[in-house]
């Protein structure tokens, strides 16, 4: 309850402070609040856009949260989601004649596998070499951008376009969309399913029991006979796999191709999502919804006001992260 209050306060403080900043820049806070409100709640269509922006944040929020539970700070979700997208693109451009069910299942598994393996590198180095996962995942992020760029401009290139993007995937890979215009698609069910599954894994299985013990009381775990190295690598694999599923949402659900640099920070927003949810998988759903709404309404701010751009969302995110972090000084994890 205390945590919830602190989270709420952090969100409020973040929003209020950014409203102060914007009103200093000459935009009335009331206009902003009104615009944001209508942007989210004015129609069912708007709401479906909000859910569309929420979906990838659920994946990246879960990704960061899982790693946190193991005492690891994964700021590599951004890279992992790209590699997951790359794997899923590879799968869908390679197996052209699969029936839809197998096509989509395979693509989902590949997205998970790609992100998971990429993150497992960091887990492996942490477990076997003691390399700090933060530095390693930062490096892996940059490497992933280059790897994806290499394939998108090379082997997977879209022959019909000058844009840096892959070829289009076949129709059998497309996820169901709920209404013609709004991009909300079936990936949101996958996201909710993942949140529930992650919750079950972390809180209801022996694996989760051990992982959480490692994250919150490393020395006790070390002395209790738990195979810490293995659990760390597995936790990173799961964390990266969840991030990789963003590829399902983007490529099978939305763009139908891999556009270079499409994410533009979804992995980093995941940090804010997880922090605000206190790493509770089911709370991640709500936290992601908040940040999804924020992204959506910031887009409308750009359209409807003269002085504010969509980057307003980043300001609020940054502030919320600062405040949440200040209210929960992290216990020593390494």
């Amino acid at each position, binding site marked *: 309850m205390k945590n919830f209050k602190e989270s709420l306060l952090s969100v409020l403080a973040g929003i209020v402070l950014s409203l102060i900043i914007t009103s200093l*820049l000459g935009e009335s806070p009331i206009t902003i609040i009104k615009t944001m409100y209508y942007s989210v709640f004015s129609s069912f269509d708007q709401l479906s856009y909000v859910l569309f922006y929420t979906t990838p944040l659920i994946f990246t929020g879960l990704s960061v949260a899982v790693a946190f539970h193991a005492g690891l700070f994964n700021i590599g979700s951004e890279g992992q989601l790209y590699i997951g997208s790359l794997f899923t693109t590879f799968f869908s451009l390679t197996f052209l004649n699969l029936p839809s069910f197998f096509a989509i299942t395979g693509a989902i598994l590949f997205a998970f596998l790609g992100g998971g393996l990429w993150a497992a590198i960091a887990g492996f180095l942490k477990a076997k070499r003691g390399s700090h996962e933060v530095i390693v995942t930062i*490096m*892996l992020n940059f490497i992933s951008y280059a790897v994806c760029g290499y394939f998108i401009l090379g082997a997977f290139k879209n022959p019909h376009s000058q844009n840096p993007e892959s070829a289009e995937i076949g129709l059998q890979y497309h996820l169901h969309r709920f209404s013609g215009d709004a991009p909300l698609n079936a990936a949101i069910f996958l996201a909710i399913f993942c949140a529930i599954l992650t919750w079950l894994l972390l809180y209801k299985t022996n694996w989760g029991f051990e992982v959480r013990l490692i994250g919150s009381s490393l020395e006790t775990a070390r002395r209790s006979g738990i195979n810490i190295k293995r659990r760390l690598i597995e936790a990173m694999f799961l964390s990266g796999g969840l991030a990789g599923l963003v590829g399902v949402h983007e490529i099978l659900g939305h763009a139908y191709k891999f556009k270079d640099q499409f994410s533009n920070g979804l992995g980093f927003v995941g940090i804010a999502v997880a922090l605000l949810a206190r790493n509770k998988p089911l709370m991640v759903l709500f936290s992601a919804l908040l940040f999804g709404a924020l992204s959506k309404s910031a887009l409308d701010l750009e359209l409807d006001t003269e002085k504010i*751009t969509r*980057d307003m969302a980043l300001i609020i995110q940054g502030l919320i992260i600062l405040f949440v*972090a*200040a209210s929960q000084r992290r216990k020593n994890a390494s």
Partner: protein
Amino acid sequence: MLLDDLILSAVRISLPLIFAAYGGMLSEKSGVANIALEAYLLFSSFCAAAVMALTHNLGFSILSGLLGGVFVGIIFSFFTVKVKSDQIIAGMALNILATGLIPVLCKAFYGTSGQTPSLEIQDRISSTTPFIIAALLVFIGTFILFKKSVFGLRVTAAGDHPPALRSQGINVDFVRVKAILIGAAIASVGGIYLSLGAGSGYTRNMSAGRGFIALAALIFGRWKPIPTLLACLFFGFFDSLQIFLQTSGTLTIPTQFVQVLPYLLTLVLLAVPTGKAQKNFAPQAINRPDL
């Protein structure tokens, strides 16, 4: 002739890395992990360019560039040193904040989406020389700071074993705040170079990950002045070689391979056991508010 060009371009590319890396070094040596270098670079380059576009006064412009970076440093040190938030999370938050705040400011002031008005040639610092001199000064200054000065010694102690200072009645937090702020000012010179020297005004996301390459160079250089300088130059050299090879068309290795080199090398360095006694080169007190 050709080699001269190559080296000059390598130095140009290295310059912002050098400033950022040494800025980060001060903070990290005092025991505060700093992944906010990107925010320093972004905000200082923005402030310098914005004020230049407004006042056309070089002095004001440089000053506000420095102040812009130091402002980020003040927020960073408040959260990391005073509040003792997690240093990585705080740094991350500042990077996000800077990438968000600057475009909003640009829109409000200039009606543009994330850039400042393009600067006339006379408003730029078109010669690289002053920046090279500044980089040399920073290098020599840092070297002497850690080798000879009282403050450098205290910074080192604060980052390695804070009780050594505390037991002598020295305020560790104060040492760290000073180190962070001086570091922020140094890194800001790199930001100023980006918008006034290398570019003509601020463009969206101007630092383009250089803050992180600088961090990689710092780790690769094991937090020591000379190896860090070499790492920056090395990364810069490969980048310029890559550009050269691409433009001359003599060799076509994918650009991506060269781009990732700094990151890949740092990763390899982290992955290879460092030999005797697994010596850990990072300052021991980094992100350990319990010490």
